[in-house]
């Protein structure tokens, strides 16, 4: 168990040179440091994305003009309108300078402020991610408890199911769920965006594989913890096996699973793209894919900013939660 804890490397650990503080001050200080490190990561991500888009083939003006009437006058107008006449570094710095005020520019293709576009697309994606994460946790814990339970015939069944879940392509699962539960059984209509019916299946298609994966992590964690002497100790005090599993072992298994969940949630966007496409949901994933296809730079940068920020936030939250689960990892939270 200890090894797992030690190798659960926190993704954003910044070494703390100053003295160790205590109580709320310490937490605030840590959060502040994390925010600082997060800003650094955001900046690097933005810069890398900016460069990548610049290096990608195809010039922005042609893309803005579309494939129809390209003439020098229009071209000049377009260049001027979108500020493409400025040197790249000026464009870059201008973009960076505007971020703090929430101005992320205007999408080339959708013609709306990127901040607004993100605002209307982020909600559904975040709801999806949150419900999926919650579902995954429930699935994982249930699965893990069933697999580690003494009911032996259940174990191969559930682990087999989990193995299939983590081994099948995710869009496959989405399509199967959609067909079975929406189109054959008609249980969940997917057309009314924002309704709970439309959320169930997309969330399930994300939650099932993640839940299965986390469950596998939990199971190996629980198995390892159940071999520890303190389990015999607690049973020697009269705890039942189930109590030992839930009150002691599960918690030990939770830390690596939590870290994994943090990573997964932080990058749920990837899964969301597919789910959004299959279910025709509005969301950041689809927004991003379309933006990259047409080199809509302000939009790409905007979405990158949001997703990396979510990632940074998720890993910070996970680390703080981690110290609640395992006080020994407080040292890691730097």
């Amino acid at each position: 168990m200890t090894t797992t804890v030690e190798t659960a490397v926190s993704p954003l650990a910044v070494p703390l040179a100053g003295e160790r503080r205590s109580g709320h001050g310490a937490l605030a200080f840590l959060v502040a440091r994390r925010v600082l490190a997060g800003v650094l990561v955001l900046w690097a991500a933005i810069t890398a994305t900016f460069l990548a888009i610049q290096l990608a083939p195809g010039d922005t003006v042609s893309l803005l003009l579309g494939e129809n009437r390209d003439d020098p006058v229009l071209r000049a107008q377009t260049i001027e309108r979108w500020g493409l006449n400025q040197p790249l570094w000026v464009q870059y710095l201008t973009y960076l300078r505007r971020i703090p005020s929430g101005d992320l520019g205007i999408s080339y293709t959708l013609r709306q402020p990127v901040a607004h576009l993100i605002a209307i697309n982020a909600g559904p994606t975040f709801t999806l991610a949150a419900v999926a994460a919650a579902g995954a946790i429930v699935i994982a814990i249930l699965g893990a408890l069933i697999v580690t339970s003494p009911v032996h015939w259940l174990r191969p069944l559930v682990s087999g199911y989990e193995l299939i879940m983590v081994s099948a392509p995710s869009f496959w699962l989405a399509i199967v769920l959609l067909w079975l539960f929406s189109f054959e059984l008609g249980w969940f209509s997917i057309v009314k965006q924002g309704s709970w019916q439309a959320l169930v299946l997309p969330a399930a298609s994300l939650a099932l594989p993640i839940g299965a994966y986390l469950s596998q992590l939990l199971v190996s964690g629980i198995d390892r913890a159940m071999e520890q002497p303190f389990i015999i100790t607690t049973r020697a005090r009269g705890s039942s096996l189930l109590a030992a599993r839930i009150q002691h072992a599960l918690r030990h298994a939770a830390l690596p699973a939590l870290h994994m969940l943090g990573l997964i949630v932080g990058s749920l966007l990837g899964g969301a793209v597919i789910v959004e496409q299959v279910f025709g949901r509005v969301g950041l994933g689809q927004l991003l894919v379309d933006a990259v296809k047409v080199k809509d730079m302000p939009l790409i940068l905007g979405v990158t900013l949001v997703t990396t920020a979510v990632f940074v936030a998720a890993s910070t939250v996970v680390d703080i939660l981690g110290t609640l689960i395992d006080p020994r990892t407080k040292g890691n939270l730097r």
Partner: protein
Amino acid sequence: MTQTIREVVVAQDQGRPEVLLSVRGLDVRFGGRRDVHAVRGLDLDISAGQCVAIVGESGSGKSVTARTLVGLAGPGAVVSAKRFQIGDVDARRLSERAWRKIRGRSIGLVLQDAQNSLDPLRPVRREVGEVLIRHQLVPRRQLARTVDQALSDVGFPDPQVRGGQYPHQLSGGLRQRALIAAALAGGPKLIVADEPTTALDVTIQAQILELLRSKCEAGTALLLISHDLAVVSSIADRVLVMKDGVVVESGTTTQVLEDPQHDYTTRLLRAIPSASTRGHRLSADAAPEAEATPVARDHGLPVARDRGSVVLCAQAVHKSFELPGHRRLVAVDGVSVSVKAGQKLGVVGESGSGKSTLARILLGLQAPDTGAVQVLGTDWGTAGREHRHEIRRAVQFVSQDPLGSFDPRYTVEEVISEPLRSVSSAQLRAERVREVLALTRLSPDLLAALPRKLSGGQRQRVSIARALALRPSVLICDEPVSALDVSIQAQILDLLDDLNHRTGTSLVFISHDLSVVHHLVDDVVVMEAGRVVESGPVTQVFADPQHAYTRRLIAAAPKPAHDLRAA
């Protein structure tokens, strides 16, 4: 509370001590791949206020017995008994539910491994409270108070505050206390304590034994499991000696320790090092014949110096570490020692007194902040890189954890020959490996084995063999025997003594076990908080300790109540 529990608890009547546990013909087997018959036909009776000890070497089935008594023999265990009575209850027919009522309430278990027997993710007070909650012994409101009481009963300081600490924030002694508090909190009539003092420092060990003894006197029965006969002799009423799952001898402590009947018991007793064993062999191994020593050939390796000349010396070395929060911890504080060729120097002191740090400095693994270390007249600090690698070979190291010091991918042969990379000829290397194998009395059959498949004693021998390969002038041993049980420890101590005699290699022997040091070394250095508080010939220092700290150490060492060498 159900019927079962009441029967057990109510069964105490006044007068003659009731029998709390009665076992006849207990058998425990582990099925599976290799069939292990861990306990065979064990008989055991314990009555209130009595202390029964089980002794025996590692793997003899002591812990399995302890776990079986609370119905936790382990997965795959097949338990059978002719009689297995806990109080009035026939434990052979207990369901898992019924067992749960007994555990913690009728029998408290203190597991062998105190480091890992407390859940590291919970404050200790919750662990202590757990037994109270499980058996609904106190109402929720009073839980905190009862837990604090239980903790202070075992001498846990400031339970309200420190009870909220997590195991990793507590010292080994406090952890062991918390564990005992948890075992006692449910008010069991019987405590099974499996090696409650191993891994602890002498002073703490003494306190824990005192605690257990007082519990016993207060009427709680104690089943004490230990491999330390000195501990057993000071506390137990009866002793059972186990070997390979069989009780080979049992009786009152006096009977068994002073007049052992079984050969094995005799050997066990003889293996215990002490002041009186100086110069004697501890193990049953015969002393090696003189001609068994191969003629050492020159493999291009340095040869040990003449006896008497100083081979290793530290002058006023000082080492401190930075702790979080700009604090500094002085680990070694102005220590001077010198080792002459052929000398056996002991270093003793409590945990954290800086023994290991000193060893690392002597080895040149860590540079002292101030002070200097000279090896064969060369200063670690001023020697050039090349020269440093040269003189490193003169000082070799044997660690407490031999397995950790072997590359897990290496076979025994690779491990031993690793230092010999500088010897160009493969043939000479192989020859030297055979030589050191012979010196350490290891069979050449082991060469192809992986170290983790070896027994503890064999591993330590391999570690010593490797250290000898370079024909060092000094062997620094950091707690080389503290992880071994008595009989193996005896073999290793004998081996080190032999080597010192035959090869003239000096020894620096670090240990917290005074009796071991007393047995083995010529001179001793006593360390406290990084400082040398006393030094001199071992007999003189132990017979007439000058410093208060030394006296405290000696007082804390377990004193056998019986003359263990009587046999």
